[in-house]
């Protein structure tokens, strides 16, 4: 147990801070806003590429994949420095964080070269085709069908909630390749270029704002996908899903801590009740960091305790949701105004960090729903952490 990191970690942090100091795009340079999580303005491409070249994009990766073989703890302080400054390292976060990561783990060499590296270098953007209407958190019941036809697959079906798909170049798509296998078997993963004939995308707005169109429905009608675009073995998509979500989960608490930290910075409590809420918020932030640091220590030792991460997810996501509910109500009639800013503008993030409190509250439900709802997380904690019997 320790309050400080080793000196090599702090040296790493200092080096990264110096890089940011020297190279961070100015507000003027970062003029054009990204319109979706699949869209990279030119300056954002240059920024991501620079990080790739200097080994700062995903520091845990080897140099040829945008990193410097950093340890887990170094990766954590990298995120800490980014979040402290409200900086996004990529404006195509799923492409970098999930899709490229999945390809580097499960993909063939050629797939790494052709897809993963360009995504990391911001030459391509990628989106994740996982959810379907009627399936939601239940991947096992997905129905988008890919028939193996020798040199290609024929894909038919529909995805939904595919963030940034309308601006992305490629979709990492979960499909059913064996309709007769038990539900969680018979799933495979395909890389599907968005310009494939028969593929159509319909962006739709979120409930907060009719102009905010990041979600997509994606329709596949007899889409031909080359056989070489199969990621990992046939019918082993479940493993890829667990792996890619695993990637996402290990340090996911950091972004929740970031969100909590932003609320702490932006909320100005008045009166004893608001101060009482504020204290809870501060405690939640600190507790999340502490619990996260224990998970980090485990990961640093090479241990994986996936069910324990459910504690971080349910706690972190509900803590910021609870806080934002209170903060919005504390805003009184000013809280009605929408869109609005509730924090100084940080040009290296999406706008939701400085949007109105309603927007921030409404968006917080993403974290209690996506990636396994809070209800599912609690069941995981009960059954896999606490050992209660399954129904």
């Amino acid at each position, binding site marked *: 147990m320790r309050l400080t990191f080793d000196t090599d970690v702090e040296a790493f942090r200092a080096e990264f801070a110096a890089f940011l100091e020297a190279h961070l795009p100015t507000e003027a340079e970062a003029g054009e806003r990204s319109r979706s999580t699949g869209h990279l303005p030119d300056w954002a491409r240059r920024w991501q590429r620079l990080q790739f070249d200097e080994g700062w994009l995903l520091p845990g990766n080897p140099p040829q994949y945008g990193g410097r073989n950093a340890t887990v703890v170094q990766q954590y302080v990298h995120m800490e420095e980014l979040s402290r400054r409200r900086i996004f390292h990529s404006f195509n976060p799923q492409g970098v964080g999930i899709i490229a990561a999945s390809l580097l783990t499960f993909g063939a060499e050629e797939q790494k070269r052709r897809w993963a590296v360009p995504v990391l270098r911001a030459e391509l953007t990628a989106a994740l085709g996982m959810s379907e209407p009627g399936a939601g958190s239940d991947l096992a*019941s997905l129905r988008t069908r890919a028939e193996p036809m020798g040199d290609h697959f024929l894909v038919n079906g529909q995805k939904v909630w595919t963030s940034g798909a309308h601006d992305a170049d490629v979709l990492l798509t979960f499909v059913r390749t064996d309709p007769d296998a038990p539900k969680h078997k018979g799933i495979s993963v395909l890389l599907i270029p968005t310009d494939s004939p028969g593929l159509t995308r319909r962006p*739709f707005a979120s409930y907060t704002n009719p102009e905010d169109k990041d*979600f997509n429905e994606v329709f596949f009608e007899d889409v031909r996908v080359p056989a070489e675009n199969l990621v990992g073995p046939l019918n082993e998509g479940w493993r890829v899903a667990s792996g890619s979500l695993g990637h996402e989960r290990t340090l996911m608490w950091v972004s929740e801590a970031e969100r909590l930290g932003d609320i702490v910075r932006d909320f100005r409590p008045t009166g004893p009740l608001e101060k009482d809420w504020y204290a809870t918020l501060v405690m939640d932030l600190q507790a999340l960091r502490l619990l996260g640091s224990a998970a980090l220590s485990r990961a640093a030792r090479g241990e994986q305790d996936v069910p324990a991460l459910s504690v971080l997810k349910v706690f972190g996501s509900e803590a910021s949701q609870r806080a934002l509910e209170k903060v919005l109500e504390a805003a009184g*009639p000013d809280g009605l105004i*929408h869109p609005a800013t509730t924090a100084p503008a940080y040009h290296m993030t999406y706008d939701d960090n400085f949007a109105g409190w309603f927007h921030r509250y409404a968006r917080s439900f993403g974290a209690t729903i996506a990636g396994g709802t809070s209800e599912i997380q609690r069941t995981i904690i009960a059954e896999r952490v606490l050992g209660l019997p399954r129904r």
Partner: protein
Amino acid sequence: MLLEFDAEQRLWQDTVHKAVLKECPPALIRRIADEGADPEPLWRVYADLGWTELTDPADAVELAIVLEELGRATDPTPYLATMTQFAPLAPDLAEPGRSGTAVYGGVTARAENGDWVLEGVGRHVLDGDRAEQLAVVTAGGVFVVPATAVSAVRSAVFDPVLHIADVLFDHVRVPARGRSAADPERARHQALTGLALTMVGACRRALDLVLDHVRTRHQFGAPIGSFQAVQHKAADMHVAVERARALGYFAALTIAEDDPRRRLASAMAKAAAGECQALVFRNAVQLFGAMGHTWENDLQFAIKRAKAGELLLGGAAEHRALIAEECRATDL
């Protein structure tokens, strides 16, 4: 005390409910939100139905029934502002069918040559951009002015059907007869109660939509409404709605009977509606899951209206503070 509708009230509720379903259906709200359709014809319908005549406090329960139903429907007209904010402040100056609203603060009045002159800015005024008349509460009294005397700017707010505006009073001259004799304290009880019942209606609508969703949506091989975690969240919503609704109608009843408990009762109504909307918003969005996150889903109208209500006329915490200061058990 017996808090249950009598036969006449049940009939009235049924009548209102059917009229609202017909005249103010979800498709109309959608057209207004997405295409900017004009709610003015609907306002005329309310007037034709006689609903704008319910300005006598003795009719407070009948008015409450209308407001709850309109809350369910996310009423796009200035009915709430007219009936619960303007009319109570200007009982002698209100005319059925003419819309109005209230400005509760930010304006000063001074006497000048037998007239009064109003100066200032009323912020976050409900329907301030479209009401035909404004009742203005100042330290010097309550004044009624026509909308033509002020300039108003509508604000962008998260509820896409709600009208909120800042209203500028730039040397607005009001003749002596424009000063209302109404008691602003009492008028405030009516405004709080009306807003509370609107919120209750919106919460009921959100619950109905959630129930429809969880009955039909399947996950892990069963309708999600059969899972205990979902069932218990729905039950909590129902309990919260029932609590807020009971306190809302109790407040209306104290107004109708001019019972001295109306000050406490209206604060309790607004506080309970606020607590209800917090739980209902939270559980509704959570239980709807991703499907509640789209602009195309009507859930947004109900939960946004309920949340907006919490931000107007003081939130639940503020009203609880008043309740704690004023109430002893024997008061009720």
